[in-house]
């Protein structure tokens, strides 16, 4: 494209150069046509959609500027609380964060070494059993990297042949013990461990992990870990089958059932353990809690919407009313209940009770004052 025409369009030519080029445009229709087309092109691009910055953004930035003037670290940190992506920026230059990262990396390497020595080592009986069980029909062995920890659990359990009946009773999930017992028995009787873990329903997976860890009674921590592991499996399944895959919804129901079987206090304690496995929810604990509250309130959040809620921002003036992670999940739940509009009426009708519950939780643990502030706005509608 003619560079001079672009420069003329952008007013980047000197007066003399611009006059010369304009005269040339008068004389040469072809050149003029090209110039007009370029001008139309730029006008068209300028017509592209524009967005309005939210009021919450303005509030945070101006508050940060005030905090910086007052040299108040507390006010500055409060201003920094906001969108989840900022955590990255905030910690990147932190010495503490760097030390923590190096320490974590050392621990991971140490654990990997120990795991390799104790479980995957060619000398260990478990390793021999695994390689035997995973042999291809042609006799070729799978690489060690293909062996998954979940499968190792299954194999360990099969080798031990532990009596699982009494322990299953300790799982204490109403009406599930018999089904789990059948599922675990079928798994233990199967000729091959390949894929067996995935075919077992969620509570079965949780109970199996519980058993494989050798627990003799049900305490919150083993169940929390077991549920977290089961939720991770759910997400792996979502990756394979898509969020609407067969059985995915049933698995979610299972996890909620497990969670509901815990006593109130334990339920709260285990929230983190269960949902930390949900790596797809970057918006923090408040939003995660709202998710579980939505489930317990009987609102079925479809998996595909659930995956999208982390970035649920609304266009137009309502955006300022619907910020904050708990609000986003509540709005998602409202949409999932069948409304295709999300306006003040919908917020009142579908979201307010749920919102009230989420807000109570937040107020009892004021870790994020800005979140509480932004959450209050829609409730006052």
């Amino acid at each position, binding site marked *: 494209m003619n560079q001079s025409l672009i420069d003329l369009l952008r007013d980047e030519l000197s007066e003399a150069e611009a006059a010369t080029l304009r005269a040339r445009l008068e004389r040469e229709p072809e050149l003029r046509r090209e110039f007009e*087309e370029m001008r139309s092109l730029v006008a068209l691009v300028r017509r592209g959609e524009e967005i309005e910055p939210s009021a919450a953004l303005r509030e945070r930035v101006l508050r940060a500027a005030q905090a910086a003037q007052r040299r108040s670290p507390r006010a500055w940190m409060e201003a920094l609380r906001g969108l989840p992506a900022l955590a990255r920026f905030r910690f990147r230059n932190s010495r503490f964060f760097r030390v923590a990262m190096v320490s974590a990396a050392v621990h991971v390497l140490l654990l990997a070494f120990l795991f390799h020595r104790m479980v995957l080592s060619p000398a260990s009986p478990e390793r021999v059993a695994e390689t035997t069980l995973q042999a291809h029909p042609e006799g070729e062995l799978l690489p060690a990297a293909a062996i998954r920890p979940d499968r190792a659990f299954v194999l360990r359990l099969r080798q031990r042949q532990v009596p699982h009946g009494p322990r299953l009773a300790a799982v204490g999930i109403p009406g599930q013990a018999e089904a789990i017992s059948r599922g675990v028995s079928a798994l233990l009787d199967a000729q091959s461990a390949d894929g067996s873990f995935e075919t077992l329903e969620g509570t079965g997976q949780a109970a199996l992990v519980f058993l494989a860890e050798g627990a003799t009674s049900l305490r919150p921590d083993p169940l929390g870990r077991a549920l977290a592991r089961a939720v991770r499996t759910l997400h792996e399944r979502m990756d394979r089958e898509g969020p609407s895959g067969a059985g995915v919804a049933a698995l979610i129901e299972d996890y909620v059932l497990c969670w509901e079987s815990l006593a109130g206090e334990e339920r709260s304690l285990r929230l983190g353990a269960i949902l930390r496995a949900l790596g797809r929810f970057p918006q923090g604990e408040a939003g995660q809690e709202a998710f579980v509250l939505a489930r317990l309130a009987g609102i079925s959040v479809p998996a595909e919407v659930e995956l999208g809620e982390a970035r*649920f921002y609304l*266009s137009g003036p309502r955006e300022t009313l619907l910020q904050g992670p708990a609000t986003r999940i509540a709005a998602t739940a409202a949409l999932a209940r069948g409304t295709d509009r999300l306006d003040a009426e919908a917020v009142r009708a579908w979201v307010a009770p749920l919102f009230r519950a989420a807000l109570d939780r937040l107020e009892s643990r004021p870790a994020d004052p800005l979140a509480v502030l932004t959450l209050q706005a829609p409730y006052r509608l």
Partner: protein
Amino acid sequence: MVAYQKGDEEAFRSLYERHTRALVNFFYKMCYDRATAEDLTQETFFRIIRYRASYRPESTFTTFLYTVARNLWIDQHRSRKAAPKTVSADARGPEEGASLGDSLPAAEQGVLKRLEDREAADLVRHALEGIPEAQRMVFLMAEAQGLKYGEIAEALGIPIGTVKSRMNAALTRLRGLLGHVLR
């Protein structure tokens, strides 16, 4: 900015009011994700606040602002590759005509006008997404933000000749992608 360096909070407020909308839309057209655009705008201003002492009045504030914005974009682009994929309410799937946000109630605009604007916006969005990032950044700074070649060169740390060639390449490509609409 000099006034803000001397402690005038009102001066910062004025800078914020003058530049935010353009900056949000700059980031928005780089990624077409409202949340990311606001994240980056917020962080840009936070950096301006944090590093206000390093501003030198030899450059315009706009150049300073977009230098910070550009560095931030590069950082964000690097980390985005490793981040888990999320779905934006603003995002459109390949077969979908409208985003989740579009299902919200109509504004006071007329239906035809809105349809027309939406169609134009979609065309522009797809066209902008179709040009390389380096060219898109130059084009948006020039056309959407009104920065001069010299300011863009300073903000991006590249020669003016490179700015011009990227601008030329961007327009050529946009013309190829949107030419059928113009004729």
